């Protein structure tokens, strides 16, 4: 009796310790976030004004905004996501659904994980050789392609993982009522894995929205307004990079403000996407 009681006690204690550690982990994560976000808000917020969104990047010593950089970032990120996400989702679908046990899947999974860790500057150089050099000039399209290549491995990895976790019973139920494979995938597997796939896309957006290195050798940057996809285009990360390391106060201020804008945008996107996928979850 007493051993059973002490076993119970020790299990309870163990549980208590582990759960306290988990709470502590969450605490640590939140403290880090608060520290970084605090610094970002402290330095960035004072520079937020209407002119940030209506004026072009200024020369040193002048007041100005980030309009061309914000526009460029939005355009290239959207194209990058539009190009990269379908490829990533489809490849992930093949790996989890059609070719779960095929050799190709094993190879692609391996290769994809390597692609995940390829330094973004290497991707930038690849696209430079692939597009910029043959075209003879830098272009926003090349930048978007570099971003798309960064999107793909993240989306592939999450899509495959999430589809693999969809219980097979669901698929079998779909097949049992006569639905062909692709309808089962679309209407059953995607639905069940939706929130996870969205997480993957969000992580991909978060990753590319702050990337400097792949844009430097592809889209370059632009001091002026340009909406020409075939010409150098400004982007927030490259602008932040150039301004943050400059000696001029106005530029440094704009760099912090730009960083704050990127962070808040990613947050807003997360909330938005979560509210779309989450409604079903809570039911």
């Amino acid at each position, binding site marked *: 009796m007493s051993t059973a009681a002490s076993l119970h006690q020790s299990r309870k204690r163990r549980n208590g310790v582990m759960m306290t550690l988990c709470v502590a982990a969450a605490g640590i994560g939140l403290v880090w976030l608060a520290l970084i976000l605090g610094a970002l808000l402290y330095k960035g917020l004072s520079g937020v004004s209407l002119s940030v969104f209506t004026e072009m990047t200024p020369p040193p010593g002048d007041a100005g905004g980030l309009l061309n950089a914000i526009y460029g970032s939005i355009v290239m990120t959207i194209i990058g996501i539009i190009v990269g996400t379908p490829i990533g989702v489809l490849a992930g679908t093949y790996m989890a659904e059609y070719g779960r046990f095929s050799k190709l899947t094993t190879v692609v999974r391996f290769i994809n994980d390597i692609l995940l860790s390829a330094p973004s500057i290497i991707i930038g150089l690849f696209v430079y050789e692939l597009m910029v050099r043959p075209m003879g000039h*830098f272009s926003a399209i090349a930048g978007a392609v570099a971003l798309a290549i960064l999107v793909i491995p993240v989306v592939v990895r999450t899509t495959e993982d999430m589809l693999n976790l969809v219980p097979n019973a669901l698929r079998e139920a779909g097949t049992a009522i006569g639905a062909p494979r692709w309808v089962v995938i679309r209407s059953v597997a995607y639905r069940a894995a939706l929130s996870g796939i969205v997480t993957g896309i969000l992580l991909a957006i978060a990753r590319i929205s702050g990337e400097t290195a792949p844009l430097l050798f592809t889209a370059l940057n632009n001091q002026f307004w340009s909406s020409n996809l075939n010409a150098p285009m400004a982007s927030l990360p490259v602008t932040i990079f150039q301004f943050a390391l400059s*000696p001029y106060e106005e530029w440094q201020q704009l760099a912090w403000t730009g960083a704050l804008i990127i962070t808040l945008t990613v947050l807003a996107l997360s909330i938005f996407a979560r509210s779309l996928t989450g409604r079903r979850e809570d039911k």
Partner: protein
Amino acid sequence: MRHFIRSAAVAIAMATASTFTLSAAMAADLSGAGSTFIYPVFAKWADTYKKDTGIGLNYQSIGSGGGIKQVIAKTVTFGATDKPMSDADLEKNGLVQFPMVMGGIVPIVNLSGVKPGELILDGKTLAQIYLGAITTWDDAAIKALNPTLTLPSTAIAVVHRSDGSGTTFNFTNYLVKLSPDWKDKVGSDTAVEWPTGVGAKGSEGVANTVKQTDGGIGYVEYAYAKQNNLSYSKMLNAAGKVVEPSLESFGAAASNADFKGAKNFNVIITNEPGDATWPIAASTWVLIHKAPDDAAATGEALKFFAWAYKDGKETAKALDYVSIPDSVVDLIKASWKADIKADGKPVFAGE
């Protein structure tokens, strides 16, 4: 939700399509890339020039190495570099180079009890410090240069650039000229194998690391020392005089440099003669093709440079750069007329 995704997709597609149509109406701007040192003044000049003439010149700081590679690959109209190209490389790639602007590099220190400008250093001592041979601030060599200062026994924390940089190139070039030891063991380039110390990213990084580290020493462009209110040191120059870092002393280095006798304007203006000369000055060169594919773009770029030499002086000064002396500008324009040609005619038509 499905409806939403569909309408979002349509909206995005329409936005993309409109971007494409817009693009047809845009005129192509001139483009240049390279040195980060020259970036702020190019940005300022380009802004003013666009307001005056309507011609935009998009210069991006991707680093001097990047600038050289891009101008060779003809992805930009011109490149800019802090390290001059050799005559052979210029010849091989069909390029001309000429100095665009100059500036100064300043040693910065963080030493309790020593005010800005109180400390005096010379090139030899600086080399010994960066070699790791002098390790404390009360070393006899530093004391000998500063007999009136009370120097603490704090260890010297050496800070250098971690990224490849024209600033490092000019700084190490100066050390090579002054110290045979440095020449043998380290040498001079945009990045070197540092015998000691810690690397910081960018001049802003060096400035901050020095600011935070007691006993720290680093080197930055003058603008960083000035804007950050850092404690700088004076230098003993080639004439044996103690000089303050200032636009005047940098300018003295520029005007004492012998550009006339140098081929391709290949003069590195460290350790130049003259009583008022600051010993660690630096220039940035522009690289442009001799026989350009797009003569119109090159012509516009040269017009811009001519405008910058003449009307951009005040701007340069406000941003702590030294303009190229007029006598040198005349040499540069002569070289444009002689060397940069399309269909046998000089591309540069101005005065």
